[in-house]
């Protein structure tokens, strides 16, 4: 147990070092990196992903996964755009987008809890289903004539500072998640479920209901991210946020959350959020295409799970070696 604790803080110390390294890399790759406008761009680019990691964190801690977050984002964006195209008031469009996201998350949760299907394949299926629904609704069209107020919310910053509006939402939600996850009995229940689902159920924790709620929340957050994305790009399209789930899952795993559930903290994930955001920004400023960024993010994803595994295996191997050596010495001593 103590070794596990040491491993966790070792990991987060590594993350901080990685963050510093990313900043150094960024400033060496481009003279435009350490500049207030650019850092504002970094925060702005992370607008949606920062929200999605909050719900993904909770889902992975309880031992599940949600691959459909980007598709729910796209679907909500399309619903918003379609209603706007049919002259509904903006408030109605936004509310509908949020409702659709929540419903999509609820369906995910229902399939996983009520029918007991593995979340991996369910959310793989809904990844396709929800994205497909987005295409059915809007087809190839794009809706982009949104009012200036809406666009400024997504694209602009708090007047007087360079902090983008969506970042404020992230801060508020992050505080809530920290209080719930690390400071309340609900959080402890989540960790328990992730560590040993059967024991949790026997301890009286309503596992199925909690998972259902988490998937629904994830859908709502993805819907909210869809609204922000639409505002930020002033464009509702069926292919919005294609591939975002890679970044979201990578950030959460890189942040020290175990893919097997039961371990992980929010501060680690937030540091990882900035690591990925800064790396992507630095690479883009050096004129590398988006796909090169994907190599880096994909590599981080694999390493974030491979790393701890390798460390544990190394420790075991060393321990075995010691035990082996001790055994030999003991046998030799008992012979003489």
């Amino acid at each position, binding site marked *: 147990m103590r070794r596990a604790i040491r491993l966790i803080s070792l990991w987060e110390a590594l993350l901080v070092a990685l963050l510093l390294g990313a900043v150094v890399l960024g400033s060496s790759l481009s003279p435009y990196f350490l500049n207030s*406008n650019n850092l504002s761009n970094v925060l702005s680019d992370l607008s949606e992903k920062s929200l999605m990691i909050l719900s993904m964190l909770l889902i992975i801690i309880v031992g599940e996964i949600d691959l459909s977050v980007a598709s729910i984002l796209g679907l909500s964006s399309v619903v918003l755009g379609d209603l706007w195209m049919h002259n509904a008031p903006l408030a109605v469009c936004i509310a509908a987008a949020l409702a659709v996201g929540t419903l999509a998350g609820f369906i995910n949760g229902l399939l996983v809890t009520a029918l007991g299907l593995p979340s991996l394949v369910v959310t793989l299926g809904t990844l396709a289903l929800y994205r497909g629904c987005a295409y059915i609704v809007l087809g190839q069209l794009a809706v982009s004539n949104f009012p200036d107020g809406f666009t400024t919310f997504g694209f602009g910053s708090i007047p007087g500072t360079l902090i983008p509006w969506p970042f404020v939402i992230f801060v508020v939600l992050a505080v809530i998640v920290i209080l719930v996850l690390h400071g309340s009995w609900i959080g402890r229940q989540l960790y328990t479920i992730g560590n040993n689902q059967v024991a949790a159920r026997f301890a009286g924790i309503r596992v199925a209901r909690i998972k259902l709620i988490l998937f629904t929340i994830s859908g709502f957050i993805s819907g909210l991210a869809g609204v922000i994305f639409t505002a930020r790009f002033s464009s509702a399209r069926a292919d919005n946020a294609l591939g975002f789930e890679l970044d979201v899952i990578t950030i959460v795993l890189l942040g020290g959350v175990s893919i097997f559930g039961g371990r992980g903290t929010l501060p680690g994930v937030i540091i990882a959020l900035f690591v990925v955001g800064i790396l992507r920004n630095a690479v883009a400023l050096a004129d590398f295409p988006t796909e090169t960024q994907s190599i880096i993010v994909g590599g981080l994803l694999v390493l974030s799970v491979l790393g701890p595994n390798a460390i544990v295996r190394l420790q075991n191997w060393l321990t075995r070696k010691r035990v082996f050596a001790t055994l030999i010495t003991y046998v030799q001593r008992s012979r003489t």
Partner: protein
Amino acid sequence: MKAAFLRTCGLGVLLLSVLLLSACGSGGGGTTAATLNIAFLPKAVNNPYFDSAAAGAQKAAAELKGQFKQVGPSDAVASEQVPYIQTLTTQGVSAIVISADDANAVAPALKQAMAKGIKVVSYDSDTAPDARAIFINQASTEDIGRSEVDVLASQINNTGQIAILSATSTATNQNAWIGFMQDELKKFPNMSLVKIAYGNDDDQTSYNETQALVQAYPDLKGIISPTTVGIAAAARYLKTAGLSGKIALTGLGTPNSLRSYVKDGTIKGFELWDVGHLGYLAYYAAAALVQGKITGKQGETFTAGTLGTFTIGANGVVLLGPPTVFDANNIDQFNF
């Protein structure tokens, strides 16, 4: 456990504040004034059409002793152009020359660039007029649209069902041409337009869309594909399916990619313009803006190297010239 956790929280907060403080402190990253640092941002980078334009632009850059680079997304998705615009803005280029995937989606980012003193020129596919100073149009929109229909009509004896294989549904140039095509069709009462399909400037999608068109409309007589990617894919499908000559195909394409199809009769004739000249002219226009020689108002003139003098028309539009028809007689004279 708590100690390590608080430690990490503290480290994270410290780091974040350092980052933000450094951001609020430094400024800079403005535009470079006298040098010509012009960046081209096409609809997508893996497109030989835009590569040809870039070659022309590079020639202009060499003549003017300016800098040239081309960045862009790997598929023609509007929201993917926006991060590149933001990166170019941060890098403080002198001018952005863009072919827009969606006229409105890129407008907010372009306006932000213009607010920082960066000149914006659009080419090939226009943006919202208030998000750029000049639009370099390859040929009169009306000429292109009408002549496409006329060419196809002459190939199918003015009778039969036809379809259009376009690029993306939001591309400004495509929709403008299609508008004139539909108007020109009124002159041919025995021809009817049965479908507008979208190939997204993606080879695979265009190939599949052509197949779908042929399967859904067994009496199809002709296809117009005003996109270089689309016409090449459609020609390949028609040839593989043994339909060369049975369904007429015309549109806009590059001589190199369509040479074999013209020689074997799959395509009797198609149109384009000198794409290299398009890029060349766009670079000169951008340079003239940067150097303050023109501001984009109607009536202003500027010289574009070997192409001569050009006058800016209404709405900041500059015309390159009339389209060229390529057929078996002249196709060997061109190499792009």
